């Protein structure tokens, strides 16, 4: 290769030595804490893309033509964190409404799994997203965000029953504003992925 990148002073480009790029979806309904969790783990300020909900083909003659907005768009935010050994982990905040289905499939492609955030004040708001995750076949873990006014009288069994979770689906509580707590929630997911190995096929 003739071109030698000098240095990545801006921090915009991939770190040198980035080798394995992996992704985890952080999924959940509006306002559940997706961006907060991504921000608390990410080494870059979370970025976002504007995605058309109906994927029409884009004109490519010039930037203005491409930016032209004809349909509804949704902002999909994501963060990036470099791990030891050349691994770069991307976290994609993924809204869970049914109307995001086609976008969902594109974002989920190649993902290791999903961390589904649930607000225990409104558990039913997460039904749609759980449906999408299960349909896509992505392995997942559930993290209850600890909001101060969350009802504390539910038992773990009641919450599991309300969400209709499989017995081996990890369920943790988490404060998305706290890095260690967010990392622990992600670890619960990754440990689940390790434990279910080896699946011969995925």
């Amino acid at each position, binding site marked *: *290769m*003739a*071109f030698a*990148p*000098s240095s*990545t*002073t*801006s921090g*915009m*480009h*991939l770190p040198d030595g*980035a*080798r*394995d*790029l*992996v*992704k985890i979806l952080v999924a959940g309904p509006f306002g559940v804490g997706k961006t907060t969790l991504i921000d608390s*783990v990410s080494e870059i300020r979370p*970025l*976002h*893309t*504007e*995605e*058309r909900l109906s*994927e029409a*083909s*884009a004109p*490519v*003659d*010039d*930037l203005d033509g*491409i*930016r032209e907005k004809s349909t509804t*768009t949704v902002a999909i935010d*994501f963060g*990036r*964190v470099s*791990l*030891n*050994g050349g*691994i770069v*982990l*991307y976290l*994609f905040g993924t809204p869970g409404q049914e109307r995001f289905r086609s976008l969902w499939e*594109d*974002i989920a*492609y*190649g993902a*290791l799994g999903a961390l589904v955030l649930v607000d225990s004040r409104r558990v039913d708001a997460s039904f749609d997203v759980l449906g999408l995750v299960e349909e896509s076949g992505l392995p997942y873990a559930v993290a209850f965000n600890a909001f101060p006014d969350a009802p504390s009288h539910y038992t773990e069994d009641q919450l599991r029953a309300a969400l209709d979770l499989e017995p081996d689906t990890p369920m943790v509580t988490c404060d998305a504003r706290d*890095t*260690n707590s967010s*990392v*622990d929630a*992600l*670890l619960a997911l*990754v*440990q689940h992925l*390790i434990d279910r*190995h*080896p699946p011969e096929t995925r």
Partner: protein
Amino acid sequence: MSRRPGGRPLVPAYLSTGGVARPSRPHLERLSVLTRSGEPAPSGLPAAELALLEALDGGSLTVVEAAAHLRLPVSAVRVLAGALLDRDLVLARAPIPPAERFDPDLLKRVADGLRALKHD
């Protein structure tokens, strides 16, 4: 789709699939890594393609990061990157080396890496 009397579709199939004319080209994922090949940009390159090329000055970017920085939808960057790939101006590689895709060791390394992020 509306058809001409002769029965041929008005819109060629490749346009209806988002304008990607060569389905044989490897699929560009959100996390596919784009790097400049080192070939100088030819004059007359469309402005949008040039903007993407210049975003790759100084280092590699994933498709989704290029989209975020250029404030374009991912679908548009896929098309632009495809055009630059056809012109051999950029190189694209998959997020994970194909041999490692289902390597259980990768998951353990992700877990170890996450644990190392935690602080007291």
